């Protein structure tokens, strides 16, 4: 009995070795830096290197800053609205690709281009498109009469968040579509058949 317990402990200890490298990396590169940053947030560092303990003053200054509400607002818009758009657009793309139609493979490839494109290349292309003087987007808007002025989409605080979100949604939605599509393919066809026999319409079947 004792021998068996000892061997079990030994077995478990060896098993821990499998995850030990990851634990060390996690501790050294994530937990320690986070902890140190938290510690530093309670100090004011002077130019001459002196570290003065100031308690929660940094946090108080941050919340007292008149720009802070806008920071939270922009972050909330980016996280919630952006994610909703990515998932929504991804769902629409996945549902469209779930059906069989002529040219499906070609369309699938085209829809995945944003996801496959390197971020730096995508940023450069979109930056040129957003250029207020010769960018395609501004020119299109002037041609259709939406505006008569050159709009600085990226350098204008009224439009910059939306402009950047559009690029982010464009780049990430195909990834969401892929995930949703693989989930759709994993649903057995007989479930849909059973649902249609029971009288479910398209929306009810999707649910």
């Amino acid at each position: 009995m004792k021998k068996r317990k000892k061997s079990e402990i030994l077995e478990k200890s060896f098993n821990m070795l499998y995850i030990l490298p990851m634990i060390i990396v996690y501790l050294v590169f994530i937990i320690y830096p986070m902890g140190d940053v938290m510690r530093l947030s309670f100090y004011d560092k002077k130019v001459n290197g002196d570290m003065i303990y100031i308690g929660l003053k940094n946090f108080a200054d941050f919340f007292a800053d008149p720009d802070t509400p806008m920071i939270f607002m922009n972050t909330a818009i980016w996280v919630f609205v952006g994610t909703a758009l990515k998932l929504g657009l991804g769902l629409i793309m996945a549902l469209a690709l779930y059906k069989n139609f002529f040219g499906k493979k070609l369309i699938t490839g085209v829809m995945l281009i944003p996801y496959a494109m390197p971020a730096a290349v995508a940023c450069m292309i979109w930056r040129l498109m957003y250029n207020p003087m010769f960018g395609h987007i501004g020119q299109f808007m002037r041609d259709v009469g939406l505006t008569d002025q050159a709009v600085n989409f990226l350098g204008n605080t009224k439009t910059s968040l939306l402009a950047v979100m559009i690029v982010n949604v464009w780049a990430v939605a195909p990834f969401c579509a892929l995930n949703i599509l693989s989930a759709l393919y994993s649903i057995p066809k007989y479930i849909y058949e059973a649902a249609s026999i029971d009288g479910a319409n398209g929306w009810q079947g999707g649910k």
Partner: protein
Amino acid sequence: MKKALAFVLSLLLIVSLAACGQSAAPATESSASDSTAAPAESGSSETSTAALPESITYVTLGSTGLDVLKQAADQFKSETGVEVKLEDWAYTEAYQKILTVAEAGNMPDAMYGFASWTNEFKEAGYIVCAEDYISKDLYNDFSEGARKVCSVDGKMWTVPSYMSVRTVLFNQKMLDAAGVKVPTTWEEFLEIAPKLYDPANGKYAYSLVAGQTKNTLDCFLPILWAYGADVMNADGTANGFNNEKGIAALQMYCDIAKYSVPDYGEATINETQSNFTNQVAAAYFHNAQGMRALADAGQDYSWVTVAEPLAGPDGEKYSLGVMDIDIIFKTGNEDTTAKFIDLWHTADYQGLVIEQTGWVPNQASYFEKRAAFSDETNVMVAPFCALEPIAKFKPSIVGWEQVEKSMADAVTKAVMGEMSPADAFAQAGSEVDAIIAG
């Protein structure tokens, strides 16, 4: 077998992490003793061959003068046997990068930087007093104004390097086509701006920056000064812009922005130069770099008029002096590094770079030895040199980067219409007061 392998890998990882930590810690020692020989003692005027380091490191920014630096490095090695390792950092990341490596004790021996860093780096203890290490000949070669910009408490802590004097440049062709003369005040310029503004045909009166922190102030400060305000008040104890004159200057900047190329929210000074050299903007605020770029491309630049800085309501006018510096860091190799700085700051090397880039020399020997600098008909140099007496420089104060950001953010918000100039400067004023108070 798998368990044994996992055990071995874990041990290897632990050992390598420990080794990484060890190699980062005594970085000061390793950078100073980047050689087999001991570093020279600081303050000593003569160093024997045995005391010279094997190599020193010099950092330039934005590849400035890199080709010529390589030539100077080759000559230095042939004369002293010391290799000069050259590094090239981007302008935008230089400040954060040097602070990071300085904190790690891994500074280069010397680098090209900005005059506004002088006081801060001196207070932080990163640098030595350059005046104590460079030769007297070099010290005396600098203009009085250049030495003053790099001095703290009467001593020259950093070495004056590239200097440019910025003023308003006009596209004479666009002015003639609009039937207007070169203005002499900002008010006059605002009056003629509508005649130069034709967005349907891609023509604008001005090109400015109102988004990127550093360059925003490069464009705005001359207007602030012309209106009689400044970054700080006379005794340097509080901000000098949150007042009637400063707010009026910011209002002028906002008004000019309405007739400017609409990329000011994301443009840098390079984009303003492109807007001007591509003849999209009728005017912009800069140095001779744009003309130099046109000349290098074999294009005509005779349509450029270098005007005096525009005056404010009380007739005050200032050109913007931009002083870059060479910094000697406290690495133990100061004597050798100073000798390289002495070699680099000669007409054949740095003087050549200044001539190639269209900047203004600040050493008397450059005027003597390079004909381009003493040619009064040289439009790339002569009119800018003539403006040096009325050049004003950004202050070198501890916390300048935060002050600059506060002011630039205020300008951006006002130009974008998010806040009125008065509210924007009120907010920035209190932030800057807090920074100055420490």
